[in-house]
């Protein structure tokens, strides 16, 4: 199937668009951009080009339209999809890419967030540390960068492991 990528102004919009398209059931993937359009902290959304118009309509309705759609001819960078789990006795740490999230196992309270280098990491840590896993704001809601996106993956994995 011919593939294309949706290019957005910033990573926050990619994260929003991913939520909209996933909720609507579209078969999309968040990927790394090809070298010619990389500027720094980038993500793009890979789509089936056949469905471009329908997907763009979905995004337009949600108020998160991309800057452009680009056909893809070469392989895109895959986000890291491996998790590392570390047990510290009373605490459990999940690592996704360069981000680590640690909880107190008994209370399910987020006790620390480490790693990363984008400016939303300290912001996310302030918002999430000290809160219960099921009550903390998700990085998807308040994060803006690839580090925020990686923390979302760690957060989802921790919830999958620890919440019923």
């Amino acid at each position, binding site marked *: 199937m011919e593939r294309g990528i949706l290019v957005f102004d910033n990573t926050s919009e990619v994260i929003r668009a991913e939520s909209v398209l996933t909720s609507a059931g579209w078969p999309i993937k968040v990927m790394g951009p090809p070298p010619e359009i990389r500027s720094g*902290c980038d993500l793009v959304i890979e789509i089936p080009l056949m469905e471009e118009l329908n997907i763009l309509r979905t995004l337009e309705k949600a108020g998160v339209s991309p800057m452009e759609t680009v056909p893809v001819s070469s392989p895109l960078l895959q986000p*890291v999809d491996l998790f590392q789990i570390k047990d510290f006795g009373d605490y459990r740490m999940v690592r996704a890419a360069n981000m680590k999230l640690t909880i107190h196992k008994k209370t399910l309270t987020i006790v620390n967030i480490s790693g990363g280098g984008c*400016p939303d*990491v300290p912001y996310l840590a302030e918002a999430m540390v000290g809160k219960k896993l099921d009550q903390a704001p998700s990085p998807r809601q308040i994060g803006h960068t690839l580090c925020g996106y990686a923390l979302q993956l760690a957060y989802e994995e921790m919830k999958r492991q620890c919440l019923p």
Partner: protein
Amino acid sequence: MFAVVGTVPDEDFPLVSGTVSMDDTRICIQGHSVSVNRGTPALLAAAVKTCETLNIDPPFGYLVGDIGKGTGSRRLYETLAEQLASFDFGPGDPQSETGTGFNVLAFHYLQPDVDWHNRILMAMEKMRNRPVLIADAGFMYAAKMSGFAAEYDLFTPDAGELAFLADEAAPHPFYTRGFILHEENRIPELIARACEHENAARCLLVKGKTDYVAKGKQIHATIDSPLEGAMEAMGGTGDTLVGIVTALIGTGLSVTKAATLAAKVNRWAGHYARPTPATQVIEIIGQIPRAFARVIRESEIGDIWTTPLHRVDTKFPRT
């Protein structure tokens, strides 16, 4: 004097520059203050503590609020690019007062943006006295992606970030390819690979279970004790290390000696804080004077005996 460039996690925090001090658990700059949790405030707090311990001038900071949208970072980049190029830091700024400028510039939690990175680098090339250049966190990501990593004197990656430096195709640690595993026992191999592709600074301080100090491909030192495993889970422990090494390089110590000493001090500060994975980094920062005393007491004097270091009170309470 050395300067630190970074962000604080408050969108309303203005763009400020000036000397940085500490008030209990907050850093203070130009009438503004911010709590020390992790990120650039943790780096600066560790640097302030180091300066107090060595009885040297406090750090100079360039800070702006940014919560990841990049707006604050770009304002800071723009201001810095103009000021560095023109040598005009304004009244009261050390660059104007001394005429010699900063001897060290450390770039930290900034939105990775290759275009702005390159403009900053071009501006620094026009400086009369080029400072020692340190990059960590987001600015290190941009420096690697720009292809100009070798222009820097020191990068301070953790093992995962070293794997990213070693992966010539990855534009961000998020895309590090799986076959470049960041296992602790492969650190020398990853350092060599990063150097081969010119994606490393001249020196590397790799933070981890064992800290590695490398100059090019050569491992200059490894530091593995004391070991506090909980520090891996704590946010900000890498930032404190960068703060200590930046201040030490500011005293005139060579990059490799400063990195080795800083790694020891950071490990001992962590040890004295008796950390659990829930410990917050401010508790480690409070132990920096005690850690310095321990490390200086146990060091070979000829290795590190510079004027500021002999001011460390090695009789600091040992309990």
